């Protein structure tokens, strides 16, 4: 996705260059000098961009049209066969739906939680400390969290022991049982991700001058009204950036699930996301399958899905900026 965004910012440059290249009567020695300098300045950045961003992306698309095991294996052209295979692959379909479920379900939960926490924190005194604490899960290695949650959610672990000690025996569950594992993962992702979005939203809301809220107080607005008429409109640009980031990050979630479902062998199909399935059919699992062409096709589909979703989201969330 970084690639797509960079492409968008770089793209206008060559177009501009083309229009400048056309000689005009007013073009003096200065103009010619500028043209020479133009490529000197743009060149290094463009080279780096082409070599490390555009090149690998194009290579990915190229590989997706081949059957290839990587090391020492000649590439065999298969055309769109890898994409047809994706269509017929039940596990890929499950993984894709799982990714979308994380995007939608966790997305709603993360943003709802982030808004509530942001509103609550706005009026608290130790808020920068609390903000840091909320951000904490985001910093800790997802692998460590996955392992720690495994211990916590063990049938005889802390979570169930706590429930039993307060008399809620009926709520104690085998949280990591196959049927419940994906729901547990969804909750875990919300817990891990929320802090990051709280921090972004708070940064946006901190810019809102206090007198808007004072005015709203004088007018007798409820907290919900304040949120709807002051906070949300005045931080809309930040909210939309956060939403785009969520789309990108949620579809790429990998380590958390990987750590959670055990790194010994391939995670069960019910709990795979697209990146996990991609890993399993390439270099992951107990015996790697090295289907690199097939894996590249998954990558292309995932990037395309992200691009489409981001464009749609930007359209839906487009508003005129409120000046203040």
């Amino acid at each position, binding site marked *: 996705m*970084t690639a797509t965004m*960079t492409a968008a910012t770089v793209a206008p440059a060559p177009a501009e260059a083309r229009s400048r290249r056309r000689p005009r009567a007013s073009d003096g020695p200065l103009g010619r000098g500028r043209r020479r300098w133009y490529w000197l300045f743009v060149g290094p950045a463009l080279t*780096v961009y082409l070599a*490390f961003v555009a090149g690998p992306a194009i290579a990915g698309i190229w590989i997706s049209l081949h059957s290839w*095991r*990587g*090391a*020492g*294996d000649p590439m065999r052209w298969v055309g769109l066969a890898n994409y047809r*295979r994706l269509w*017929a*692959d*039940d*596990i890929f379909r499950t993984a894709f739906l799982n990714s979308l479920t994380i995007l939608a379900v966790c997305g709603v939960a993360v943003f709802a939680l982030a808004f509530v926490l942001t509103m609550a924190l706005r009026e608290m005194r130790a808020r920068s400390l609390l903000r840091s604490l909320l951000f904490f899960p985001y910093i800790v290695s997802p692998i460590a969290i996955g*392992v720690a949650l*495994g*211990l916590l959610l*063990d*049938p005889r672990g802390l979570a169930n022991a706590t429930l039993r000690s307060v008399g809620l025996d009926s709520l104690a569950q*085998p*949280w*990591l*049982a*196959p*049927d419940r594992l994906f729901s547990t993962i969804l909750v875990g992702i919300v817990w891990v991700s929320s802090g990051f979005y709280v*921090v*972004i939203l708070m*940064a946006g809301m901190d810019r809102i001058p206090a007198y808007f809220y004072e005015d709203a107080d004088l007018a007798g607005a409820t907290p919900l009204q304040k949120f709807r008429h002051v906070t949300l409109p005045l931080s809309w640009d930040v909210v939309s*950036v*956060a939403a785009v*980031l969520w789309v990108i990050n949620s579809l790429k979630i990998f380590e958390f699930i990987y750590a959670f*479902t*055990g790194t*010994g*062998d*391939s995670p*069960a*199909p019910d709990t795979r996301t697209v990146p996990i399935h991609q890993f*399993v*059919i390439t*270099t*992951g*699992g*107990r*015996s*790697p*399958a*090295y*289907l690199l062409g097939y894996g590249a096709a998954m990558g292309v589909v995932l990037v395309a899905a992200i691009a489409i979703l981001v464009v749609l989201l930007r359209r839906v969330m487009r508003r005129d900026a409120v000046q203040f």
Partner: protein
Amino acid sequence: MSAMTQMGISRRGVLSAALAVAVAGPLAACGGGGDGGGGGGTASTQLVYWSMWKQGEDQQKVLQAALDEFQAKTGIKVEVQWSGRDVIKQVAARLNAGNPPDLTDQDAGTIKGILGKVDGVKNLDALYATTVDGETKKVSEVIPAGLVKPYRSSSGAPIVVPYEIIGSTMWFDGAAHPDWVSAPPKTWSDFMTLLDARKAAGRTPIALDGDIKFYDAYFTTWSIVRHGGVGLLSRAATDKTGATFDDPAFLAAARDVEKLVKGGYVVKDFNATKFPAQQNAWAAGKSPTDLLLMGTWAPSETGPQAASGFTHRSFAYPTVPGGKGNAAAEAGVIGFAIPAKARHADAAEKFIAFFLNKDRLAKISTETKNLTPRSDIPAPAVLADYQQELIAAGDNLFLPYDDAGAVAPEWVSNVWEPINGDFFNGKLDAAGFVAKLKSETVKLHKNA
């Protein structure tokens, strides 16, 4: 805005990492070259070894000592990199670039599955015909042929020289069950009698870390081998028509395992815990379990958690009436391989013959507590039962998943492991297990 800054930083981070790789690549490439030796007739003066072991592991210490001795005695300069378990993936990446290490090691199935598949390893028939350092025996005379039979190149030559044997067997506490030591259950009905007795005593006798499908599948693999013989499972994995699954051995095996799963013999919540919770609880006596079907690494993995007085003993998986694989034992090996295009292959061969020397190899038994392929090196005490099992099996040996991991890796990750998971989680009965294996195998091959 903080998000934008963060993206900027991460992009820069990626870039600097990429640059670092670009700079380091050619430098590393210089390291191996220079002195030219290898196939050119003159003996190499250098040996580059990438190992599966990590700094501080027992095997690493044993190998390091041997490498130091080798360097001192031969003058060949050894460059070793303790890469860890992903070493073969790293070697595979280097094969493309044309500058692989001269020597590497891993589980032989991994070597065969990754390097052997692309003809990325050297044929070692010449090495098998040379004499072991300081002895009169040839390499082929100290390494049992049955152990290396599965690991051959497309031309039929051996590609791996093993120095450690691993396999799975049924573990229990010999101190608590001396009767199982003196008279282990031999047949399936003996085994069920034993399980029923334990169940009647209020136990769930089988410990199992069910989040690892590999461990679930120990039972199905063993049962399929016992009923249908070695090689049936990997034949079925690669059969495009799925017809191999119609062999009655599959259903018979599934019925046996179903009895274990549905009969209340497996520990409660075995699939809702995270490895190694169950095996640790078994060793520590914290769960009502008695048996653990596990690799030969079980004593070293569970030893630190074991209750005081716990004595690791083992017996073979029970035989079944009319089974074609009743004499088989599971035995994989960890061994050396020489990547194709290795520039100092002669030095690598010399080191292998050096390390196989009885006194040097014996340290794998005495210091790492593992079984070596040499029958004249005594097994460590905890593996004595397993060694007997192995000797009785002769060359009737099979690999984890009956070698399906090497011949059909995608089938293992996307068909075998998930369906074993469903079977153990009670979503499939015995007939459903076999039927789903068949239909998913056909589908996989049709899509591939």
